[in-house]
């Protein structure tokens, strides 16, 4: 089934349960359909992957056209990542170390907790039935990871939180001297990890240092990271999202460009909570949340496909 018909099937049946960090339910708005159409169009015409250099800022990489893009051009990167060939080696290393090929984890903030993110793919069969067949296969393949609560997906997390042993939550089985990253890797043995921290995080320039520490840890464990750009790109020159692009190139890892997915939505699908005016537009509305989980699933599918010939059935 081609991409447009997949999309029509998906949209025709309709997307339902949506929410925000406060888990609202709402029908799929029309604007989302347009955004999904545009998103999927990018998927339908992926760029040809090119070898990616170690130095992010000096050398360009694959982009949505034949011309390679630099980190500074991250806004033009495709929504669904072009997966670097080196990812397969990382994955194979992880398999040798005993990682679960059917498991993925999420490292993130309030937009990453299962109720808000992709939990419905584990809990709502009707929702899954609305997905294109290829994505339904991916849902089945990673069953159990979508709605799994963990110490690494917590509302108040920054990149630093993932490295702070005081943030490891005993209720999930973490040891007191273990950082959340290592706790999650030990408990779930994921082969893939979404990294989606950075919402309204703009106070210092240490974020990228912490992300490097996390990426080093993941790659040492043979785990494939999937970096995400945020809709509320923050900091001077959007540096929170720019950092993700820099790291994607520096580490040769995939980047899911969610920011680009929201360009068709009014205000990038963001709103300010009534009792949290000081935080500004940081929360994703229902349209954006639907787009968030769908493009995440597409990205997971793309990465799974990239290591496809080494995957167990």
């Amino acid at each position: 089934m081609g991409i447009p018909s997949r999309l029509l099937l998906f949209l025709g049946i309709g997307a339902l349960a949506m929410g925000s960090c406060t888990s609202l339910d709402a029908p799929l708005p029309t604007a989302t359909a347009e955004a999904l159409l545009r998103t999927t169009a990018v998927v339908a015409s992926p760029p040809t992957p090119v070898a990616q250099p170690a130095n992010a800022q000096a050398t360009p990489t694959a982009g949505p056209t034949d011309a390679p893009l630099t980190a500074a051009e991250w806004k033009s990167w495709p929504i669904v990542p072009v997966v670097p060939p080196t990812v397969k080696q990382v994955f194979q290393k992880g398999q040798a170390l005993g990682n679960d090929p059917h498991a993925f984890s999420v490292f993130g903030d309030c937009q990453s907790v299962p109720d808000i993110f992709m939990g419905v793919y584990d809990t709502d069969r009707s929702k899954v039935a609305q997905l294109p067949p290829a994505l339904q296969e991916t849902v089945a393949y990673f069953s159990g990871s979508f709605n799994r609560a963990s110490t690494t997906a917590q509302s108040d997390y920054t990149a630093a939180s993932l490295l702070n042993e005081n943030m490891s939550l005993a209720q999930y089985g973490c040891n007191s001297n273990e950082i959340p990253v290592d706790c999650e890797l030990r408990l779930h043995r994921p082969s893939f990890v979404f990294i989606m921290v950075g919402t309204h995080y703009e106070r210092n320039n240490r974020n990228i240092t912490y992300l490097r520490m996390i990426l080093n840890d993941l790659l040492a464990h043979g785990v494939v990271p999937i970096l995400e750009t945020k809709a509320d790109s923050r900091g001077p020159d959007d540096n929170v999202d720019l950092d993700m692009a820099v790291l994607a190139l520096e580490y040769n890892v995939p980047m899911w460009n969610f920011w680009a997915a929201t360009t068709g939505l009014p205000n990038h699908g963001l709103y300010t909570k009534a009792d949290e005016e000081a935080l500004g537009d940081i929360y994703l509305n229902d349209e954006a949340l639907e787009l968030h989980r769908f493009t995440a699933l597409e990205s997971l599918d793309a990465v799974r496909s990239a290591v496809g010939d080494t995957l167990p059935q």
Partner: protein
Amino acid sequence: MTPFRILTRQILMTRRLLFSLTLALSFLLAACTTSKDESAQAVQSLLQALVQRDEAHYTALTCGSYEDSALIEYDSFDLVQLSLKDLSCSQTGQNGNTATVHCTGSIQATYGNEVQSYDLSKRTYHLTLQGGDWLVCGYTQ
């Protein structure tokens, strides 16, 4: 020398000795108390700087070797509202230029309607005296 004079002289010498001893003891006690207070106060100041988001003061109170880890803790709380509950710290040991401090109370981290409490009584802070100031060099728990 008459017995009366001898007695008077002995009394005077004893008084001087007692005075000197008292003075020395007072200095010792004062120094000890100040040092104890200062190490505990350094930890309290560090925690107050953490919750007040005063990064400059926070890092000024940490050892160079601990600064990176201290900043991870500091940045971990960047998205929450912080407060200290029932904080009290006291020095539990000192060996030359190093000391340990124990605190009671907790850090309260609020995000939306969720409040996470971090129990400080599980921690033993380790400090070093550098340039006349007690600096926090980490903690074990």
